[in-house]
């Protein structure tokens, strides 16, 4: 499943027929190049190559196996092992509505994925979701979620800016509002028999301390059962920085990688897994709400290797 050029480079390197310390190094240089071209982060590539080298050297003794096939298999197996396992588990709360919180950088696909998750939960898990419009900043973000909810027959909870609900002390800063809208949304779910609540939050930079604190406030007030980091599959070297910050501050439960219907190699998948240790649960493969699939590490591995 590796591209001809990659396999071809190896065939040339190992045409001598034996896996030696020297051609392992040269082979790994090819692997390094492929991973960097695929957008895997520099530090992750370094560590990956070091680990693969160890297994490769350890396998020097294995007789009778074509060495280039050997290296390809070692690399591919290691990628699958690192990015796996398949894990689409969503923690369900049996005491009160299950809360799922969607977080991530601007434009990564949170709102659309909120719609996709709702459809998945209705059709595959027989749940009764409520969507909460917690993005009080982006123009027409609330409308966007309402349109998606309507198309699915799933209710959407939202509040108008400046709307006052019982219990508020008149603070209209965006910071307190997002958390309160979320808390009010969960109350609304409890009162209307909805058993899952998905909180669609505003996109933000991991280095925006005030906005990261807003997310922490939402978490404190709503105690989510699942926090999903929504990441764009075409992200480059920056994946290690943003994913790490979101995980360090939020303790995410899983990742959803979007826009995999594009032609990006998707090395960000490895970077994100490596730096957060959290599994990629689902992938987005299109704009329509039925385009949500399970994450398969083997398919991702062969895509990354190109």
């Amino acid at each position, binding site marked *: 499943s590796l591209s001809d050029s990659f396999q071809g480079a190896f065939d040339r390197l190992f045409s001598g027929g034996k896996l030696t310390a020297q051609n392992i190094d040269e082979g790994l240089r090819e692997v390094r190049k492929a991973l960097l*071209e695929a957008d895997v982060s520099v530090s992750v590539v370094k560590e990956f190559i070091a680990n693969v080298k160890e297994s490769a050297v350890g396998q020097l003794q294995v007789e009778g196996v074509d060495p280039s096939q050997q290296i390809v298999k070692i690399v591919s197996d290691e990628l699958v092992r690192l990015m796996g396992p398949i894990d689409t588990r969503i923690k369900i709360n049996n005491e009160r509505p299950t809360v799922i919180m969607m977080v991530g950088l601007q434009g990564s696909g949170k709102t659309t994925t909120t719609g996709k998750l709702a459809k998945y939960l209705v059709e595959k898990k027989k749940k009764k979701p409520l969507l909460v419009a917690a993005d009080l900043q982006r123009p027409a973000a609330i409308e966007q979620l309402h349109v998606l909810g309507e198309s699915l027959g799933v209710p959407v909870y939202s509040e108008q800016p400046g709307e006052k609900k019982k219990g508020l002390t008149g603070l209209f800063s965006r910071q307190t509002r997002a958390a309160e809208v979320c808390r009010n949304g969960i109350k609304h779910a409890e009162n209307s028999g909805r058993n899952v609540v998905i909180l669609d939050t505003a996109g933000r930079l991991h280095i925006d301390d005030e906005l990261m604190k807003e997310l922490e406030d939402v978490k404190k007030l709503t105690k989510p059962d699942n926090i999903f980091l929504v990441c764009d599959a*075409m992200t480059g070297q920056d994946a290690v920085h943003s994913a790490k910050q979101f995980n360090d501050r939020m303790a995410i439960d899983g990742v959803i990688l979007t826009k995999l219907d594009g032609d990006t190699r998707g090395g960000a998948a490895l970077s994100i897994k490596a730096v957060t240790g959290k599994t990629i649960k689902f992938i987005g493969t299109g704009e329509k709400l039925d385009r949500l699939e399970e994450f398969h590490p083997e398919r991702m591995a062969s895509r990354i290797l190109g």
Partner: protein
Amino acid sequence: KTFRGKIDEEVIGSLEEILLAADIGVATTDALLEGLKAAYRKGEIQSQAQVLDYLKAHLKEKLGGAGGKLNMAEKPPTVILVCGVNGCGKTTSIAKLTYYFAQQGKKVLLCASDTFRAAAVDQLNTWADRLGVAITRGQQGADPASVAHDAHEKALKGGFDVLIVDTAGRLHNDKNLMRELEKIARVGKKHVPDSPHEVLLVLDATTGQNAIRQAEAFTEAIQVTGIVLAKLDGTAKGGMIVPIREELGIPVKFVGLGERPTDLAPFDADTFVEGMFS
């Protein structure tokens, strides 16, 4: 007298990491480092200490020349078509450009040609209201090209200086959507023969090497004349613009530095390159 030595491998190694981490890409990084070694051999670089300055100067020269320079029409309206993949920052960049033109006293008309995505027209409409500019929209699901066509007519009749056309996000490997984009770009020519005068591709600064593929595909469909590099206020360095300038000759004209209408700046090669190494 010239120093005919070899650059320390450690220096090359650490520069390589910086360039790769900035999303410059393997091929461009290798070429830049080879260029450094050659310059050192020829004596253009006299010492290890000069290596970084030489590299920065080389990059600044490569990237300069087009910051803030939009192609304006001989007589109004100037038509600017904005395209790019999903979520990269097109609509927000249009709000910023609108503010930029409004500050110059120009009369702007916006065209909501994203008739597909949920609340896309509402989003642009909100910006039009906030910025006090006119907007042409169609029905949800209307043919985006027909909305663009009507906008050109309105721009002429209404004496607008600038028409900015917002399009739906699309992945460049979707043949039907790229064909749709070609049609949107073509349809205005009936009323404004030189339209579009400027085709801006918006790139998300956090994108990796796929940005090069995006630039290739979009320019193949509708000659891209400039790039808006959005979300440069994050930690991503946006180095993909180097191979894009090198291989495709497409310059970055503006950078997006936040989510407000004022968060747009003309691209400045010096600032950009310094930011890459900071």
